[in-house]
């Protein structure tokens, strides 16, 4: 039994790592008031570029760097359109998804070596392998946390840092203010546009890193639609976590866990169709949304950043 729980936790963490990176990233973006629906596109492009780079340079670090760069670039486009050009954020994000998805497919069919028909599919490249932390890795149940790869270990640092930054630092305060009331933040001397740009770009970088984890560790390798819609799940997760990076872990584990549990259940002969289990996270998110919105007392203290999706215009300067 303990074996089962440990192995489920193990898989859950591996599956959830990319989700956590992306969720923390998008949480920051949305906290500044920008909704980025281009996550699926960013994750895919991040995955393909990280893999291609790592394959040719044989260096995982190079792969990560390129993924960060790609994530930043796509996010900057969304930021430029949404913030500077004040375009509709929903449409802008969706175009990034469309563009990113197309780009990733395109590159996946074009960047490979000639020997493979220019395809990247089916190639084997360098990957992050899990390694065990001495002694900690042998603990029952909790040992699963210490049998992971480098990127997952980084998550253990990322999440507390993100939480601390958001709630305990001056810059986090500014970020939250921009998301709740950009006019006030502006009047208080905060550079709203800069904060939003940074939040979007850094968010995009983290999302792309999540994609890189898929192609450099989880799958590994490149396949069409490697993300399987994770980019959309992240949008749900951010809400589920109520825009709190620490709670993002819960959500990621939940979503990642359902995947893992599903395999085990089927192996054990359970009769719930996989589809219904897969639907659960999305339905759960709808419920969370309803509860958060409906419960007034709650929504005054937690809830969507009030300026989410609204462009900020300082009339005249």
């Amino acid at each position: 039994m303990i074996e089962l729980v440990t192995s489920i936790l193990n898989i859950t963490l591996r599956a959830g790592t990319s989700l956590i990176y992306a969720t923390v990233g998008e949480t920051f973006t949305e906290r500044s008031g920008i909704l980025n629906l281009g996550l699926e596109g960013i994750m895919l492009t991040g995955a393909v570029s990280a893999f291609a780079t790592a394959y040719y340079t044989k260096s995982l670090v190079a792969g990560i760097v390129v993924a960060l760069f790609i994530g930043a670039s796509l996010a900057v486009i969304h930021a430029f359109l949404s913030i500077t050009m004040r375009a509709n954020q929903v449409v802008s994000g969706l175009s990034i998804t469309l563009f990113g998805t197309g780009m990733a497919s395109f590159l996946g069919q074009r960047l490979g070596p000639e020997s493979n028909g220019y395809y990247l599919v089916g190639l084997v490249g360098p990957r992050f392998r899990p390694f065990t932390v001495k002694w900690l890795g042998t603990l029952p149940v909790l040992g699963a946390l210490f049998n992971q790869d480098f990127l997952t270990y980084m998550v253990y640092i990322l999440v507390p840092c993100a939480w601390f930054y958001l709630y305990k630092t001056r810059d986090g305060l500014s970020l939250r203010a921009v998301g709740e009331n950009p006019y006030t933040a502006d009047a208080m001397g905060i550079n709203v546009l800069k904060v939003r740009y940074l939040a979007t770009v850094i968010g995009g970088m983290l999302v792309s890193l999540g994609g890189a984890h898929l192609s450099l560790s989880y799958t590994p390798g490149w396949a069409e639609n490697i993300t399987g819609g994770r980019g959309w799940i992240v949008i749900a997760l951010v809400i589920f976590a109520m825009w709190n990076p620490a709670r993002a872990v819960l959500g990621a584990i939940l979503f990642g866990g359902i995947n893992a549990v599903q395999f085990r259940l089927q192996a054990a002969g359970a009769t719930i169709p996989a589809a219904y289990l897969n639907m659960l996270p999305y339905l759960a998110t709808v419920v969370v949304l309803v509860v958060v919105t409906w419960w007034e007392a709650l929504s005054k203290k937690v809830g969507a950043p009030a300026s989410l999706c609204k462009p900020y215009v300082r009339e005249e300067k």
Partner: protein
Amino acid sequence: MNSSQNRQSRPIVEMRGITKHFPGVLANDHVDFTLYEGEVLALLGENGAGKSTLMNILAGLYRQDSGEIHIDTKPVSIQSPRDASVLGIGMVHQNFMLVSTMTVAENIVLGTRSLSFVPDMECIRTRIRALSKRYGLQVDPGAYIWQLSVGEQQRVEILKLLYRDVRILILDEPTAVLTPQESEELNKVITQMIGEGKSAVFITHKMEEVMTFSNRVQVLRKGKPVTVKKTSATNPQELARLMVGREVLFRLDKGPSQLGHVVLDIQGVHTIDDRGYPALRGIDLQIRSGEILGIAGVAGNGQRQLAEAITGLRHVEQGRVLINGKDLTNRAPLEIIRAGVSHIPADRISMGIVGNMSVAHNLAMKGYRKPPLFQVGVLRPRRILNFALRLISLFQISTPRPQTEVKFLSGGNIQKTILAREIDACRGLLIAGYPSRGLDVGATEAVRKRLLEQREAGNAILLISEDLEELYTISDRIAVLYEGRIMGIIPSHRTTTHMLGLMMAGVEYGSLPEELKTNTTS
């Protein structure tokens, strides 16, 4: 400039030749402005005179097209609120700049330059409490903004500036949201600050405030400077004339009332506000046709609730609302509109018009459901246009074309549009919420004339206003609202400011001292 070393006569702010234009309007036209250290200067003018614009430039929110600013006789360039803050300039706006989901302390330290990367909130709260005590601005640093009353929120705004060692304090229409008593307290706070060597600018369009609060007064009219005077050397009538450029009639011809049947009958109405607290606590009043009933009271004592309860926009928990004898309590807004009730909302921009739609469409928004604007299953564009042209002409709405989007109109013309629409649709009862708020004297007069016309025509009017002058001038009776209850309903010719002031602060008519009750206004 006086070169003496006397602190009192040192110009701390000098703005020369400030010009600022927005699309279609010249807000400031070569305005000169001087503020001396240790004084309170009132900046007086009608809406659109350019007072807020000028001060927004000083506070760094706008940038002037041309002109210079000198602080402490040194030329400066103010590009942002942060620059202004560095120079010791701070502004309390009409719409508070507060983040409601954060605490008082967090709001106060937001954006301060000296804030360390990981702030020590406990230390900050202590500092705030000390400031609170020193200036008499009571507020709990740990409270969330959404928990505070409007008066308390204003205190937070002022504390924000004090925390940053502001030397030059700009207040934009601060008393609009305060009771007479709270205004007095504000006066004390400002006096305390002046005593410590700070200087203040008070933006207002009310002559009485100028007389109460300031040492000197500068008048602006239509973007141009008019004059600067010592407050002690002038009076409200002169100020009004300077503001507007002509003699202002403070009295309109109001004929004797011709009362008819009871149009609006409110019986024991109770409502709850958005936070769950009781708002209206048992309102009883009646209005007859041909009568104007004025509702006085500081904003926030239930006026909005009253208007909403009558028009179906807010749930009535207890009691009844009868219109022309029919019980229309808690009916859908549409039903009440169909019963002939019109409403000029207090929030005219957010509730009264759709900015992105044309003037014509806005005018049609009450009549579009039936002939002639709607017939045989479709809307009739040509008829809508003719209808609009008729109203534009009748109400003298100044607009380039009927198709112009209404957001491009001036405040006064927007209000005229709303008035036109609502009056045209009115069949018995008109609810007017602060109809002349923020309008210049000319537009105000026009509004009041229309209301009197409707009274002549036999409609019943509920007039909610913060302008006591207005209430005397056109209402037949005045009711005072305080904390959701009516303190008394008195014929307007028997009211005085003193009486109303006490009632607005919670004294019931029955408890007023006898000598007040027997006074009449001259």
